[in-house]
């Protein structure tokens, strides 16, 4: 157990990312309000980005931007640039998803005048009959 606590306190970025993931997941599951659900989804997004980026970080190294390109570049100077590049793509896709789901929410509100998902499902069933 003490071993586990030592590992967790060393990997604190990953631990906090997983806690954030749990918070986002539970608010996605339990909230009935669509806006809250979208915010929970965004929190989950951020936690995954945090988890991914923390793997690229290496102690004592700097961001992968070369100050003096005339000197040959040493790998030991810079952190791993690959996770950063992947997460950069993810952030912009996250914005697109948010905008799309907000547009859908607006249309649902215009039709049913409520944001409660349960009520929306009941009203939609009522229309079908």
């Amino acid at each position, binding site marked *: 157990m003490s071993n586990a606590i030592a590992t967790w306190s060393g990997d*604190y970025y990953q631990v906090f990312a997983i806690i954030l993931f749990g918070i986002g997941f539970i608010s996605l599951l339990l909230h009935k309000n669509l806006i809250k659900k979208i915010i929970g989804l*965004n929190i989950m997004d951020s936690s995954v980005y945090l988890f991914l980026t923390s793997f690229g970080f290496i102690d004592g190294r700097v961001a992968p931007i070369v100050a003096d390109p005339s000197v040959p570049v040493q790998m030991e100077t810079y952190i791993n640039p690959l996770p950063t590049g992947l997460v950069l793509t993810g952030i912009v896709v996250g914005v697109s998803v948010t905008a799309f789901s907000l547009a859908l929410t607006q249309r649902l509100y215009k039709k049913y005048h409520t944001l409660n998902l349960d009520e929306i499902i009941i009203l939609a069933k009522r229309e079908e009959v």
Partner: protein
Amino acid sequence: MELFTILLLIGLVVCAVSASLAKNLLNTLLIFMAFSLMMSMIWLLLQAPDLAITEAAVGAGVDTVLFLLTLKTIHALKGTRFDKGHDEKH
């Protein structure tokens, strides 16, 4: 520096919890904006300045504007002229 990082991470968790517990949607949104700003500081500490710039411009800027406009459309901004009862809509 490590202490500052852990404080920021705890702040992230506090923001996430209070964003999902707040009753008013506007409060949720403002807390989420603070969450994005803290996230962009954490990107700087993780030596990823590209992510910091993008998160600050997109997460705290454009996302918040889109959420606010949605709140206006769904009449959730209480106490303003956008707050209307259900009766007027039919």
